[in-house]
């Protein structure tokens, strides 16, 4: 594998029939390999100016008339490249269900209550050490229509830019010990050896005494060592 290619031994395949929506949406022809050009070694830059005051605090950014319900948690981690170097000043976007497992999204029909004080979306920019930190509410599990009695494990959606457009990553963070992981075809779609990389770790040092538990979730992106035409 070239250093900067996508590692197909860790990313899920397009077609994974246990996850039914893949069946008519997965590309069926082989991908065509592309040598990186300037178009692939560049990417959008979103820094601190793209983040508002409470964007990294989901316990505050949706408040209307009180505190959101549920278990407060700190979610923090480092964004690293494939060589373990921190990716500084890069935008991290997240979205999630509320404590009852309900999304604010208009098409979420799950019969669980919305929380008038919880929006569920946030963003922040990594610091000098590549670290991001969110304060939020632990998301609930929710049912979905993939198969009878299907439930998504608790999870937070993450979206990352990294240092160029080939670093782009959308993923989901799970919680340690979740019994639903073994039944979830979205999680199980990841090759077995890499699944643990999507499970956050409980971290006592991130816990805020008398206030919130802490979970650490590090993310490794492909990095920025490709120079144009180096693969040719």
């Amino acid at each position, binding site marked *: 594998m070239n250093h900067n290619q*996508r*590692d197909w031994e*860790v*990313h*899920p*395949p*397009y077609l994974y029939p246990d*996850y039914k*929506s*893949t*069946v*008519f*949406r*997965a*590309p*069926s*022809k082989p*991908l*065509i*390999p*592309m*040598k990186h*050009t*300037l*178009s*692939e070694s*560049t990417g959008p*830059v*979103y820094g601190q100016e793209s983040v508002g005051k409470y964007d990294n605090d989901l316990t505050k950014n949706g408040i209307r008339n009180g505190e959101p319900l549920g278990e407060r948690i700190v979610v923090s981690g480092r964004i*690293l490249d*494939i060589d373990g170097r921190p990716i500084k000043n890069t*935008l991290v*976007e997240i*979205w999630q269900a509320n404590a009852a497992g309900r*999304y*604010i*999204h208009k*098409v*979420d029909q799950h019969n669980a209550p919305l929380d008038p004080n919880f*929006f569920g*979306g946030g963003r922040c920019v990594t610091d000098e050490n590549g670290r991001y930190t969110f304060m939020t509410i632990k998301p609930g599990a929710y049912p979905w229509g993939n198969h009878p009695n299907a439930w998504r494990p608790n999870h937070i*959606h993450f*979206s990352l830019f990294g240092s160029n*457009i080939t670093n*782009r*990553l*959308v*993923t*989901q963070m799970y919680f340690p010990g979740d019994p639903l992981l073994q039944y979830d075809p*979205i999680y199980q*779609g*990841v*090759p077995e050896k*890499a699944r643990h*990389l999507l499970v956050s770790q409980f971290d006592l040092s991130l816990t805020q005494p008398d206030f919130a538990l802490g979970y650490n979730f590090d*993310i*490794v*992106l*492909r990095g920025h060592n490709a120079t*144009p035409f180096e693969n040719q």
Partner: protein
Amino acid sequence: MTQTPSQTVGPYFAYGLSPQQYLYNHTSIASGNLRTSNTQGEPITIKGRVLDGQGNAIPDAMIEIWQADAKGQYNPTDSDFKGFGRFGTGTDPEAQFIFQTIKPASVDGQAPHITVVVFMRGLLTHAYTRLYFSDETAENQKDIVLSTVPEERKNTLIAQRQETPEGIVYQWDIVMQGEQETVFFDV
């Protein structure tokens, strides 16, 4: 280190990634409109649908584009053109993605093109493709990336230029599967 695996964007990305387009009460970092009245270059609109293997338009896809400016520069320092757009297919009645941008100039001797990243429920890992322009036949013929694409599939990457009362529109559907499947790249 090992790359963190990808997961689907799911059906509920809108309020997290594209809240303004979907009328949620939060700012967006990017939208379908990349230009201002000051942006140099030919104003164009790019429109299309994302079709599944049964020919149905997908209403919960998210399309991102990344492009150079009219001088062929990425991240130009001398203008406010960011070159990045993001649009969900859930707000248009025909499930189209719609980008208001400018036509990029050629970069590094390549034909003018736009990098396109495709996300949706049912896609566990995002897909990369490229959009080229139907009025750049000569440039397209010598493009180093297009030249790696089998002849009979090149048309899937070429947006068709149309002159309409609202201006120049490039029409380009993304087909996920089948005979007319869009070429996706291992980038």
